[in-house]
C-alpha cells in the first residue's frame, strides 16, 4: 500500500493505493493518528487505487473515524472501486462511513 497525502481546499486528502490489510494498515494508522492529533477538520480518503481492503484495514478506518469525531472533525471516503463496493455492501459500512462518489462531492457538504 502507498499513501500520498495532499491538501484540497483545507482538507487533508489521503490517496491510498494497493492492498489495505493487516500488514499495511499500521502505516495508515500512524498517518491518521498524526493528523487526528493535529485536529484537522476534514480528512478525505481516496479509494480509487485501492485494490483490496480487509477487516484490519476497515478497523483502522473505524479508529480514524472515531478519532476525527472526537474533536468534531469529519472523515469521508470517496472513489470506492466496484470490487470494494461489494465488501462495503456486505459489511453495511455505508451506515458507518460517509461515502462519496468523487473528491468534489466529498468537499461539497
Amino acid at each position, binding site marked *: 500500500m502507498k499513501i500520498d497525502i495532499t491538501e484540497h481546499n483545507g482538507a487533508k486528502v489521503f490517496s491510498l493505493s494497493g492492498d489495505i490489510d493487516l500488514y499495511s494498515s499500521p502505516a495508515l494508522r500512524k498517518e491518521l493518528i498524526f493528523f487526528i492529533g493535529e485536529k484537522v477538520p476534514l480528512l478525505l480518503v481516496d479509494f480509487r487505487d485501492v485494490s483490496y481492503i480487509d*477487516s*484490519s484495514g476497515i*478497523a483502522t478506518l*473505524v*479508529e480514524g473515524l472515531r478519532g476525527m469525531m472526537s474533536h468534531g472533525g469529519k472523515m469521508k471516503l470517496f472513489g470506492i472501486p466496484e470490487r470494494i463496493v*461489494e465488501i462495503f455492501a*456486505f459489511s*453495511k459500512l455505508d451506515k458507518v462511513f460517509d461515502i462519496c462518489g468523487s473528491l468534489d462531492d466529498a468537499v461539497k457538504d
Partner: protein
Amino acid sequence: MGEKPTEISGEVLKGMEKKVEALKMLMDLSSVISSTLDFSELIPIVMEKAKAVMEAEACSILLYNKDANRLEFEVALCEEGPTSELLKKQVTLEMGQGIAGWVAQNLRPLVIPDVGSDKRFYGDADKLTGFTTKSIIAVPLIGRGGLIGVAEVINHKKDYDMEIFQLLCRQFAIAIENSLFHKESLERERMKQELDIASAIQKSFLPASPVFRKGNLIVSAKNISAAKVGGDIYDFVEPAEGRVGVLIGDVSGKGVSAAIYMAKVSSDFRYIACLADSPSTALDRLNISLAGAPRGMFLTGIYMIVDTSTGNCHVSVAGHPPFLWLSDSTVRVMSVPAGPPVGIVPSEYPSASFRLNKGDRLILLTDGLFDAKNRDGQRLGFDAVVKLVTEHLHEEQLIERLVDFADDFSGGGDRADDLTIVELKWGA
C-alpha cells in the same frame, strides 16, 4: 660447511614470545567463548579477557540497538567492580556520538591516547561512575549481519598489540552474534509454546463438538484459523425450549488480538443469547457490550434462531456476507436487511423470517472462504462460491467440498484469513 645460525636479538625474541603468548590466549579464549551460548555468561568472560589482554583498567561493551539506531551499554567492568547497571540504565549513545558512536558509525577502530584532547569524547559516563578515563581503544564488533556493537578498553597499558586486540574483537563479535541468535531462537520457541496454549484455550471457546442435533435440525461447523489463533467464531445455544440459536462471526484483524476479542465476544454472546428472545435483541445488546473496542475492532456476524419443531427461522445480520439457502433445486443468496458490524456505532438490528422445508440447507460462511487468494493475487470471490454450491447442490459433504475448493484455488499457499462454514440441515 654448515651455515652460521642467525642471531636473534633479545628484543625480537621478547616480541615473539609475547606474540606466542597472545596467540595462545586467543586459542584458549576461542574454546571458552564457544563453550556457552548463554549471553549473560558470555559477556563477562569476553570482558575479563579483553581487560587482561590489554592490561586495561576498565572495559565496556555497547550493543547496537537497530530499532532505536543507538548504542546501549551492555556491560562495563572496571577494577572497582562492575558499573554496568549504572550505565545500562542511564547512558545510551546516538550513532556518531562519543568515541563509541564514531566507531559504530564509521565501522573503524579508534585509538585515543588522551581523551582530554579529543572533542569526540563524551564524558557523561565518567560523571555517572566517578571513573576517570584517560585513554580509549574502541573497536567495532561486526558480525555476519552487520554492526553488533563496540568494544572499548579504557586506560590501557602503553605497550599494547592492536592486531591481537582486533583479532580478539572478531572472536567476540562471532560469539556475541551466536549467543544473540540463540537467545532469539529460545524466545521464538517460548512464543510458539505460548501460542499453542492460546490456541488450545481459544478452541475451548467454540462448542465442544462441531455437530449439534436438536429435533429435525442438524448443525455442523468447520473452523480453520490462518494462524495458531484466529478471529472467527461460531456457536450453538438453546435460548428456550425447542429453539436453537446459531451464530457465525468474524472479528476484525487476525492473530492474538483478534483471538482475545473473539473470547470476549464469545462470553458476552452466551450471556446475552440466553436472555434474548429474538436475534435482533441479541445483536442490539451485543452491539452495546462491544462498543468502543480498541483499535476500531468490530465483529461481523449472523445470528439465527430456529424453531426445532416448525423450521421457522428468525435471523439478524451485522455487516456479514450473505448466507445461502439451498432447497431441492435452487440456491438462494440471502441478503436480508442488515445492520452495520457490531461494536462500531449505535444501531438497531432488523430481523427477517423464513421457514425451512424438509431437506433444505443453509450455508453460513466467513470471508476467509471467498477471499482466498491464488498465486496471481486474484481472489476467489463470492460468486464462485455460489456457483460451486449450485453445481454440488445435493452433495452431502458440502463443507469439505468448499474448503477443498478454496485450498485448491490458493494452490497450497498459506491461508491468509480464518475460514468458518456453518451448515444447518432441516429434516434430514
